């Protein structure tokens, strides 16, 4: 098979299983985001792919070749580190062409390739500058160019944007995605930022406690989260406990949601509904009644917090569909059945 396959990989640090019998297959040319809270094992997984950590068990296969025991420097994977790890004693050009120098490529060829790569990351003419004189975004680009110098089989990035400010991060995400598509290179990015994952990825892998909770396209993850953990981690959501009453109807906070299939089985379940799917109506006209506790008017969107006798439901509306609710008002909350996803809690 062309691409990367991770077969039943486990990594144990003492008693702690950082990665727990994980399986994942990544087709060639795919942009994958490993997403999860800190300590979920995503960085450990990336480091195992890079060969910087050895799996306790399992195998890692690329294009049909088992590379589990191959040392890092023979893998030809490009990697961008969280700290970027630019060599402080080398110029920008020498940083970029380091991999070529190690291979004994002629000096002019190194120079030519460095110029080409720097042009690719929009830093033409920077080759002779010292690394210390670059801005955060420029250092980021140099790290990317350096990792791509040998046209690697796999491009790995460990929280590459974490040092950048919010605005720059957004534009770098777009740039990185465009670069990946132009080169058609299989790319794996570790991130804890779900916006970053949604922007760039073909395949989002949500991890928690060393396991894959869900691996799917960004929109599927957002619309059909596999469980409460994924729903809560990707974007913001309203998680409400759901019960089945004697008549077999799905009940939330004592109110039936018409048209929603009740969860099967006795296991505890919740519904996840995105704030933008919740509608505010007049008191008595919605699924549930509640009291507005806070209105956050952000200009582009308005978030209304409604206390429905226990949990607080957040509704996001645009100014065009403005609801004139103030804190303290009694309102109705509409939870459309088609927007509710039943998830295991």
């Amino acid at each position, binding site marked *: 098979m062309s691409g990367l396959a991770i077969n039943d990989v486990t990594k144990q640090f003492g008693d702690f299983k950082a990665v727990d019998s994980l399986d994942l297959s990544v087709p060639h040319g795919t942009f994958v985001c490993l997403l999860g809270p800190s300590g979920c094992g995503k960085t450990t997984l990336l480091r195992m792919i*890079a*060969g*910087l950590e050895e799996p306790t068990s399992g195998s890692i296969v690329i294009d049909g070749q088992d590379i589990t025991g191959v*040392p*890092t*420097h*023979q*893998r*030809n*994977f*490009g*990697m961008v*580190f*969280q*700290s970027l*790890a630019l*060599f*402080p*004693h*080398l110029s920008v050009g020498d940083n970029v062409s*380091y*991999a070529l120098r*190690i*291979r004994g490529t002629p000096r002019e060829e190194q120079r030519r390739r460095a110029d080409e790569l720097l042009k690719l990351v929009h830093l033409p003419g920077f080759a002779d500058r010292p690394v210390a004189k670059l801005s955060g975004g420029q250092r980021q680009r140099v790290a990317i160019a*350096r*990792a791509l*110098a*040998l046209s690697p089989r796999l491009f*790995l990035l460990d929280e590459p944007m974490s040092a950048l400010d919010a605005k720059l991060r957004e534009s770098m995400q777009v740039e990185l995605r465009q670069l990946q598509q132009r080169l058609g290179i299989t790319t794996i990015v570790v991130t804890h930022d779900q916006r970053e994952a949604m922007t760039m990825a073909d395949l989002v892998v949500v991890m928690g406690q060393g396991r894959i909770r869900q691996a799917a396209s960004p929109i599927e993850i957002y619309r059909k989260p596999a469980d409460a953990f994924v729903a809560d981690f990707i974007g913001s959501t309203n998680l409400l406990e759901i019960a089945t009453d004697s008549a077999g109807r799905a009940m939330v906070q004592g109110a039936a949601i018409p048209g929603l299939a009740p969860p099967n089985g006795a296991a505890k379940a919740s519904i996840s509904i995105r704030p933008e799917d919740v509608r505010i109506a007049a008191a008595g006209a919605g699924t549930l009644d509640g009291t507005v506790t806070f209105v956050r008017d952000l200009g582009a969107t308005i978030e209304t917090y409604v206390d429905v006798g226990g949990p607080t439901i957040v509704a996001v509306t645009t100014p065009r569909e403005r609801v004139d609710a103030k804190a303290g008002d009694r309102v109705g909350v509409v939870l459309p059945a088609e927007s509710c996803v039943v998830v295991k809690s």
Partner: protein
Amino acid sequence: MRREAPKSLADYAPLVFPGLMLIVFFVVPFSTMIAVSFFQRDPAGFYTVAFTLDNYGRFISLFFGRVLGFSLMLSVLVAICCVAIAFPFTYLLTKQSRKVQTVWLVVLLSVLSLSEVIIGFAWSTLFSRTAGITNLFVWLGLMNEPVALLPSFGAVLTGMVYQALPYTVLVLYPALVRLDPTLLEAARTLGSSPVRAFFNVVVPALRNTVVATVIMVFVFALGSYLLPQILGRPQHWTLSVLITDQAIYQSNMPFAAAMAVFLVLISLALVGLTLFAGRKENAL
């Protein structure tokens, strides 16, 4: 944090104590020494106040030139050996667990508590024919009969490296601990084997630290005057030994002072040259 230049006289108060100590214990004795180096020796007593260049004139001879050359060569060699041993050692030490690091650092610090005399006599025992390490080699079947390894140049070098090594490790340790470990990992992902990455990433990234450490050990070794006497032959005696000899046994203070001043000037010149060369290289 922005540093503000001291404005009032009171802002300089913290400098009074160190300044005073520096004047009392460095400027005054050193100036005295410079003054004495121009005085006339009085064979009957100590010295008489005069102004003569004889002391410096006497120094300019083949014999003293050779001793000076040997002293500088020995110190450079000690500095290079120390850094060559201590750098990889300290690097590997920083990769160990905290507990292991603490144990090693405590052991190294305890070596610092040994005086030069004890180190000298310990090594002279270890290098002796009757009780030395060659007996161990004989017992292991590596040698036919025990031999004395001293007095010799190797013995002097070993003793001095042993003495300076803990300082070297302690100076390198903070810089190596702070070194970003991902630098080495980055080099490995770029196709460099770990050993190669150590030499073309870790070492150059810490070049300034290495140069500073070499200079420190060099200056430290230059002042050593007991080990060459205990472990070496007279031709292995350094200028510091001769200075001690002149000052204490020959009671020729002016000449000893002249040699000391000369030694300080030469070492300062060498250190300055090293720093100058380093700056020039950095600018390129």
